C-alpha cells in the first residue's frame, strides 16, 4: 500500500485532514487551486458563535500546513487526471501547476512587486467590494506567501505575447523595436524572481488514498433577479459583507457601502436568498445563513452603534452548541429587528435600496428604505466538484454536491474504495461540522493505511511460521 494521501482542496477541511494525517507520520499531497490555502474561512471576519477572529484561529493551521515536513503543498494547481496505479494499488495523479510567472524558490515574499504594480482589478477574494493588484497574494496572511501574476490582466505578458504572436508588428513605423510594456514588478523585485517565460508544468504523484474537500460556492447575485440581479451596487452577499467587516479587508474593517463609501445606517439582511426556494432557487436549506446573519448583524451594530439592522427570515434554524443563545444575543442585546417574512423585491431609488417585504406575523406588507442590503445567498456546489467527481467516478446529487456512500453511517466515505470526503463538497456545513468531517476522513485514511500494514505483517508472520515449522 502506498502510504500517501492526496487531498484536493486547501480550505479548512483539507487543511484539517492534512494536519491530522501528516502529524500521524504519513505523507500528504495537498492541492489548492488558488494561490494560497485557507479557502472561504480565510475570507471571514469572525466566526459564530464565539466571535473568534477567523484569520487568527486559522493562521496557525495554515502556517503549519504550509511548513509541515510531511505535507507537499501544491498551491495554484489543479488535479488534471486520476488513474489507477498500474503496478500496485492506489492512484496515479497528474497535477497541473499553473504558471505563476514568479519563481517561488527565489521569491522572499517581501511584497514590493504588489506595491509597485500599477494595475488593479476587482478581487474575487474580496467578493467584489475590493480590488487587488495584477500581481497578488490573496491576503497579507497568505500561505504560501508568494505572489502570482494574473496573466489575463498583466500589461507586460499581454504585450509580450502580442509581439511574439505577430499581432503587434515587431518593428513600429519609426523603425523602433516593439517591447513589452510595464514590467514594474520585475524592475523592482530585489531577488529577480519574476520569470516571464514560466509555463504550466505537470507533475505526477502516486497516492494510496484521496480526500475530496473541494468546498462550495455561493449562488451568484445575477441569479436573484427579484433582488436586483447584481445590478444594485448596495445589494451585496454575505461573503462581501464579511470582507467589509474583516480587519484585513478592503475597508480595514469599517462598514462602508460600495456605491458611495458612506457608513450605512439602515441595513437589511435577507435570509434564504435562493435557498428553500424550489420555484426560483434551490430547495434545500443552506444551513449556515441563520447563524452568520445573526453574527453579521451583531458585528454591524458593534461597528455602527447608531445603525439599525433588520433580518428577514422564514424561520430561524439555530441547532448547534451555543447557537440559540447567540441568536437571542443578537435580538436582545444588539437590538436586531427580526421580521418573519420574505422580501419580494428590492430596487434602487434615490441612493436608497427600497426593500419590499411582508411581515407574516402582523400580516402586513413592509417597505424599508435601506442603505445597504445583505443577501444570505444559497450555498451551491462548485463546478470543480463535478469535474473531480468525473475524474474519480464519484456520485453527485442533482445539485452537484457529492453523495456519501451512506448519509447516516458512512457520511465521509465515497462509493470508490480509498476515496473520502470532507466539508461542504458534500453539502452545506458550518466550520465545526466541516472540521469534524475532515478529522473523520483523516481517521478513515489512517485506518486504511494501518489495516494494510497489519495485513502485510500478518502475511509475513504466517510465511515465517511456515518456513520454520516444516
Amino acid at each position, binding site marked *: 500500500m502506498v502510504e500517501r494521501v492526496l487531498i484536493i482542496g486547501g480550505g479548512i477541511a483539507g487543511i484539517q485532514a492534512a494536519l491530522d494525517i501528516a502529524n500521524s507520520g504519513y505523507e500528504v499531497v495537498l492541492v489548492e487551486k488558488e494561490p494560497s490555502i485557507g479557502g472561504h474561512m480565510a475570507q471571514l471576519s469572525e466566526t459564530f458563535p464565539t466571535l473568534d477572529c477567523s484569520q487568527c484561529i486559522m493562521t496557525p493551521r495554515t502556517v503549519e500546513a504550509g511548513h509541515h515536513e510531511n505535507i507537499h503543498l501544491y498551491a495554484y494547481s489543479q488535479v488534471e487526471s486520476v488513474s489507477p496505479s498500474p503496478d500496485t494499488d492506489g492512484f496515479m495523479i497528474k497535477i497541473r501547476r499553473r504558471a505563476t510567472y514568479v519563481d517561488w524558490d527565489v521569491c522572499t515574499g517581501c511584497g514590493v512587486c504588489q506595491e509597485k504594480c500599477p494595475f488593479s482589478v476587482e478581487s474575487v477574494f474580496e467578493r467584489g467590494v475590493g480590488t487587488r493588484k495584477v500581481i497578488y497574494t490573496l491576503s497579507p496572511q497568505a500561505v504560501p506567501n508568494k505572489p502570482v501574476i494574473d496573466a489575463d490582466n498583466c500589461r507586460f505578458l499581454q504585450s509580450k505575447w502580442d509581439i511574439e504572436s505577430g499581432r503587434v508588428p515587431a518593428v513600429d513605423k519609426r523603425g523602433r523595436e516593439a517591447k513589452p510594456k510595464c514590467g514594474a514588478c520585475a524592475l523592482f523585485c530585489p531577488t529577480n524572481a519574476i520569470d516571464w517565460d514560466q509555463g504550466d508544468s505537470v507533475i505526477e504523484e502516486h497516492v494510496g488514498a484521496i480526500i475530496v474537500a473541494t468546498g462550495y460556492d455561493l449562488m451568484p447575485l445575477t441569479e436573484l433577479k427579484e433582488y436586483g440581479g447584481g445590478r444594485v451596487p448596495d445589494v451585496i452577499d454575505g461573503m462581501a459583507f464579511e470582507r467589509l467587516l474583516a480587519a484585513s479587508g478592503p475597508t480595514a474593517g469599517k462598514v462602508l457601502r460600495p456605491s458611495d463609501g458612506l457608513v450605512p445606517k439602515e441595513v437589511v439582511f435577507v435570509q434564504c436568498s435562493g435557498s428553500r426556494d424550489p420555484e426560483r432557487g434551490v430547495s434545500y436549506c443552506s444551513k449556515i445563513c441563520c447563524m452568520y446573519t445573526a453574527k453579521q448583524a451583531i458585528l454591524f451594530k458593534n461597528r455602527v452603534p447608531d445603525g439599525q439592522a433588520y433580518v428577514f427570515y422564514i424561520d430561524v434554524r439555530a441547532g448547534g452548541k451555543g447557537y440559540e443563545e447567540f441568536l437571542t444575543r443578537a435580538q436582545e442585546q444588539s437590538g436586531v429587528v427580526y421580521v418573519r417574512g420574505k422580501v419580494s423585491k428590492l430596487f434602487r*431609488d434615490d441612493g436608497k435600496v*427600497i426593500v419590499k417585504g411582508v411581515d407574516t406575523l402582523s400580516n402586513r406588507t413592509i417597505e424599508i428604505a435601506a442603505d445597504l442590503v445583505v443577501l444570505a445567498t444559497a450555498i451551491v456546489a462548485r463546478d470543480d466538484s463535478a469535474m473531480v467527481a468525473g475524474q474519480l467516478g464519484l456520485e453527485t446529487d442533482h445539485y452537484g454536491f457529492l453523495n456519501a456512500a451512506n448519509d447516516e453511517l458512512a457520511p465521509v466515505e465515497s462509493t470508490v474504495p480509498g476515496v473520502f470526503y470532507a466539508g461542504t463538497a458534500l453539502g452545506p456545513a458550518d466550520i465545526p461540522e466541516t472540521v469534524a468531517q475532515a478529522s473523520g476522513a483523516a481517521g478513515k485514511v489512517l485506518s486504511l493505511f494501518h489495516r494494510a500494514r497489519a495485513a502485510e505483517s500478518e502475511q509475513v508472520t504466517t510465511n515465517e511460521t511456515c518456513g520454520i515449522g516444516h
Partner: protein
Amino acid sequence: MPLSYFPGCSLSTSAKTYDVSGRAVAAELGTPFEELPDWQCCGATFPLATDNVMALIAPARLLAKTQRVGGHTTTLCAICYHVLKRAQAFFERDPDALERINWFTEEPYDGKARISHYLELLRDEYGWDAVTDKVRRPLTGLRVAPYYGCLLLRPENEIGLDDADEPSVLHDCLAALGCEVVDFPYGSECCGSYLAVSQPDLPRQLSRDIIASARTSGADAIATACPLCQYNLDHAQKIVDSAGTSAGETLPILYFTQLMAVALGLGPEITGLAHDIVDPWLSHGSREGPVTASVSA
C-alpha cells in the same frame, strides 16, 4: 396572411382604443387581424381553487374555437392572454379535467392550440427591425416607461412571454418606434387589478406609486399592454381618493399599439389619443408637449 385575433370583452368596450389601434397596426404591418368567430368572454380570471373545472369552460371553448381556425390565435389583452395560456398549461397537466370539460361543452379541444400575445408575434415573427422599417414618424425624444404589470409575465413558467423580473419585449417595441425607453423599478409591479371593484383605494395607491416612479424616472408617458392596467393607472389620476389626496402631476397611460399607430403614421381616429382621462396633449400643459410634437412632426 391574416392572423386569427381574439379581442375579448374589454377591447370591445372600455379599451376600444387598444382594439382599434391594434387592428390598424396589424393591417399596416401586412398581417391584418381576422376576428375569431363566435368568441365569448375568456372567463376574465384564472381560477386558483384546485378543483374548479367549471371556471375553465370559457377558456376551453375559446381554445376549441382556435383549434377550428387553424390552431393559432392572437390576443392584445394581457388578461385574456394570461387566462388562455394558463388554461392551456392546466389542461396539459390534467388531461382528465379537459376530458370532463370536452364532454360538457361538446366542443372538443385537443389540447394543441397556440395562443400568442401580439407583442410575442412582433418580436419572434415580424421582428423589431421590420417594425422600425415601417416607422414613418419616429417617436424621437419621447420618453416612455414600459409598464408590464403582472398578468402579462407571471407565472413565468406558464406564460413564458418574457423574463418576469427583467422583461424586455415592451422595451424593445418602444425602442423600435424610436422612443427613449425609461426603465423604472415599478415596471412589473401589480396595479391592483380587480381590486378596483372591491377596494378601490388600494389599486389607486398602487397605481399612483407606479406613476410617481415613472415620473421621477423622467417619463413623458407610460406604455402598457393591459386594459386593466391602463384603466387603473389612468383612473388613479382622475379621482381624489378618500384621504383627499389627488394624483399631482399626471402622466398619459397609452397602449403600445397607440404609440405604434402614431409612429406608423396613422390618423387620430386610429391612435385614439384623446380618449383617456389623462389627455396626452393636455398633460404637458400645451399642445406642444412631447407626444404632440411627435404626432405633428
